[in-house]
């Protein structure tokens, strides 16, 4: 009987540290304040809601030292504190509700970041993981090293900066100015209208299907990969397209010309409309398609 009791007690003690700790805490917050969130590993989900409060639910890894959750004036902090050397058992999954007009700054190392319905500015950074923001209504800076980045806007004028090293960058319904880049992966911009667009890929495709405003500037560059640009609406720009190894197919403007009788490159330069904007497209190894609708 005694042996049985000791065995049960030991089992309980062994199992106990493995169990993740549940968290469910709420703090009052400013309706349009700042919320800073940091979680080294696991996942972070942030949702904008109508209450003037920040709510944190989820689980903390067994080796997490503590969850720092505090408010100083208009700034709320949510931080998963882990041992300095990191290690196992620090994965924490957090779901955080914030006032819809909050600005957020989210940092992670090995965690996905998902944001929905937050209308303030967003700064989202992870090293290894995907970053996604839906219904973003303000400036967004989204960055990953190894993972996809996706921003879904509401077509309001904002500044969107999205980058990854290894992964795709997809931007839906954002407008205003955009800068997107990937080393290995695709960059896609779909819908919206822009005054400034900078797209850069080293190995991968560039797809742009959106409007360029009067006086707007679009730059799309790859080293190895195709570029497909479809300008929606009126086009008024000086257009300069060039390749080193690759054909150019255009649905408007003059025929492309060979850059040289002895090299496989092509170029296309012309002015469309009043020519008050600029479209610069270039690739080293890959074709370019330029159309409008």
């Amino acid at each position, binding site marked *: 009987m005694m042996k049985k009791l000791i065995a049960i007690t030991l089992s309980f003690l062994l199992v106990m540290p493995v169990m993740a700790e549940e968290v469910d805490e709420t703090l009052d917050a400013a309706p349009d304040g700042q919320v800073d969130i940091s979680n080294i590993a696991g996942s972070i989900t942030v949702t904008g809601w109508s209450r003037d409060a920040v709510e944190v639910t989820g689980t903390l890894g067994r080796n997490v030292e503590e969850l720092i959750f505090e408010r100083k004036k208009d700034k709320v902090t949510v931080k998963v504190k882990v041992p300095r050397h990191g290690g196992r058992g620090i994965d924490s999954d957090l779901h955080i509700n914030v006032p819809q007009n909050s600005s957020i700054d989210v940092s992670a190392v090995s965690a996905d970041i998902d944001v929905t319905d937050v209308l303030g500015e967003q700064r989202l950074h992870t090293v290894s993981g995907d970053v996604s923001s839906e219904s973003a209504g303000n400036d967004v800076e989204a960055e990953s090293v190894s993972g996809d980045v996706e921003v879904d806007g509401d077509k309001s004028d904002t500044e969107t900066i999205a980058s990854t090293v290894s992964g795709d960058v997809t931007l839906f319904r954002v407008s205003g100015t955009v800068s997107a880049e990937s080393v290995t992966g695709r960059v896609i911009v779909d819908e919206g209208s822009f005054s400034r667009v900078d797209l850069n890929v*080293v190995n991968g495709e560039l797809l742009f299907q959106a409007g360029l405003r009067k006086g707007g500037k679009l730059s799309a560059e790859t080293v190895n990969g195709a570029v497909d640009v479809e300008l929606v609406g009126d086009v008024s720009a000086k257009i300069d397209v060039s390749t080193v190894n690759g054909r150019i197919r255009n649905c408007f403007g003059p025929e492309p010309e060979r850059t040289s009788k002895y090299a496989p490159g092509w170029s296309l330069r012309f002015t469309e409309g009043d020519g008050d904007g600029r479209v610069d497209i*270039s690739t080293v190894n890959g074709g370019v398609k330029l159309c409008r609708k």
Partner: protein
Amino acid sequence: MTELNDDKLAAAARRLPTEISPERDLWPGIAEAVRAPRRARWTPMFAQAAAIVLLIGASSAVTYVAVSGQQGPVTQVAPNLIFEQTSFGSRYNVGPGFQDARDELVAQLDVELARLSPQTRAEVATNLEVLHEAIFAINEALERDPDNLMLQAKLVNAYREELSVLRRVGGLTRNVMMRNDI
């Protein structure tokens, strides 16, 4: 005998074509070069190169200040992260200062990489290799067409992107680990 040879020589000379065309039509290139405004072709490029060197210098200084207080083992840079010689086509070099500054960033990156998962480390290494291959491809194209401004700009962009990756990987990891504002 001499007179006979002279006659043969004169006859052979008469048979020669009166004009010889070059193997390929060089005039369009010459005309374009004459028409084009003369400009110091290396000037914008070196200005950009100088900007990059300054950028790296400033970045290195900031990074050095940021990491100098840290304790931790500094591991050797993996061989596949050693960069090739920086060059602008066959004619231009940005000099040892650029390479030294970049080597410093690579060494710091190695410290940061040690904190990441093996998978992430592998992805970073793979993408740096992609960048090196891109730089190699651009350099190859520049060998064939050294005055191509688009290629020169792409090369500068590729170097900039490489530095950006180095800084982002190191910066992101360090910033999250050591955030004092939170």
